[in-house]
């Protein structure tokens, strides 16, 4: 028993949960799957007077198509996302990224919303959410709002949600055209947080011209990053004319807060990141042309 004492709450509706959060203010923390929060409590990196366990709220569970997006309830486990045919069909990048999240024992408890709200810059789901322009649906006792991914990740482990707000679901836009996705990561051991990683999405028109592309960067800043300048430069070009190594080079331009620690210097991480982007681009590019 290592965490400091706390008061435990297990609401069964979002309304009850947000009321609890409103009463407790920043002395409360939402407990989802607990796969990041419980270690932080055990190491006493975090101490809260109240934990609001959202694991018994049915309305936070589920995967369903809503208009042009796939809605996933924040409490849906990563294991369920991984096994979902609906996700594989609509948002294949999520299906490809999920096996990189921890280990299968972690994914049995860890949730999609927990990972995104925890906002670790080296985690996969925040990177995918940013790369795909996902929308975060947030509720509090005062109402609802939707935050675009680009406005959601503020800094290390910090989002723009207020302490009384609860992430209740995430909508991932569905790419319908000739498209393909790839994820590449370099980690010391399988399941570790990546030294650097990349997610790539490419959509082509019938003539192999790039209609849109997304390049997400994992572990290369204080938040997940997006190589927007590189994307802008690649759109409308023929995929056959693009060298993956050049994409990797382009994607590393402008990164300002690359981590520099005992796991790797900033310079090393950028070299790894460049290689991961190049590999992911090559994989997605080959798949979209052949498929």
């Amino acid at each position, binding site marked *: 028993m290592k965490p400091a*004492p706390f008061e435990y709450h297990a609401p069964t509706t979002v309304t009850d949960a947000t009321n609890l959060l409103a009463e407790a203010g920043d002395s409360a923390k939402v407990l989802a799957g607990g796969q990041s929060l419980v270690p932080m409590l055990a190491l006493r990196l975090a101490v809260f007077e109240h934990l609001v366990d959202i694991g018994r709220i049915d309305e936070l569970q589920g995967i369903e198509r809503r208009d042009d997006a796939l809605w996933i309830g924040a409490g849906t486990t990563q294991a369920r996302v991984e096994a979902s045919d609906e996700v594989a069909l609509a948002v294949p990048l999520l299906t490809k990224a999920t096996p990189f999240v921890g280990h299968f024992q972690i994914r*049995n408890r860890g949730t999609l919303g927990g990972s995104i709200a925890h906002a670790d810059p080296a985690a996969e789901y925040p990177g995918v959410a940013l790369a795909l322009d996902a929308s975060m649906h947030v509720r509090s006792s005062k109402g609802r709002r939707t935050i675009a991914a680009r406005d959601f990740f503020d800094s290390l482990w910090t989002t723009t949600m207020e302490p009384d707000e609860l992430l209740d679901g995430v909508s991932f836009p569905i790419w319908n055209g000739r498209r393909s996705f790839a994820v590449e990561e370099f980690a010391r051991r399988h399941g570790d947080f990546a030294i650097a990683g990349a997610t790539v999405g490419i959509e082509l028109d019938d003539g192999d011209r790039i209609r849109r592309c997304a390049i997400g960067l994992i572990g290369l800043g204080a938040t997940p990053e997006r190589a927007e300048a590189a994307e802008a430069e690649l759109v409308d070009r023929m995929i056959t004319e693009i060298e993956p190594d050049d994409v990797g080079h382009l994607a590393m331009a402008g990164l300002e807060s690359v981590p520099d620690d005992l796991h790797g210097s900033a310079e090393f991480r950028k070299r790894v990141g460049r290689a991961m982007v190049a590999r992911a681009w090559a994989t997605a590019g080959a798949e979209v042309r052949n498929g």
Partner: protein
Amino acid sequence: MADVSVDVTVNGRRRRETVEPRLTLADFLRDRCRLTGTHLGCEHGVCGACTVLVDGAAVRSCLMFAVQADGAEVTTVEGIAPSDGGLSEVQAAFRDCHGLQCGFCTPGFVTSVTAFLRDHPRPTDAQIREVLSGTLCRCTGYQGIFRAVRQAADAGQREERP
């Protein structure tokens, strides 16, 4: 800080206890249920020694509070073996293949592998290696453990044939 009552079925036996919310499921199993087969290595989710099955899913019992298991069915390594005192297929394979030496990590491997083979009765070698990456062994090495999983999987497939 108010204590909370929990009602959990552990290895088929119902347990009703009052606990501090901060009591992990691992400590609940070891200290309250006296089921010390669940081992605690790192206590922050890295080593996997404490893995148990909660409603059939392999999870780290150090990353779950006992109160979160209220209403759940928990299976520990003590519940994996048949009640006649013999070994399960997975346990027997670990013995046959030198899949353990000091045995500290073994409960985590046995519970994880039992759940994995239930869900993937015909695993590829790559799948087996990936599953083993979630638990740390620091003495036997993984080759014997890998062979044990392969043997248990092959034995399960033989049983399935008519």
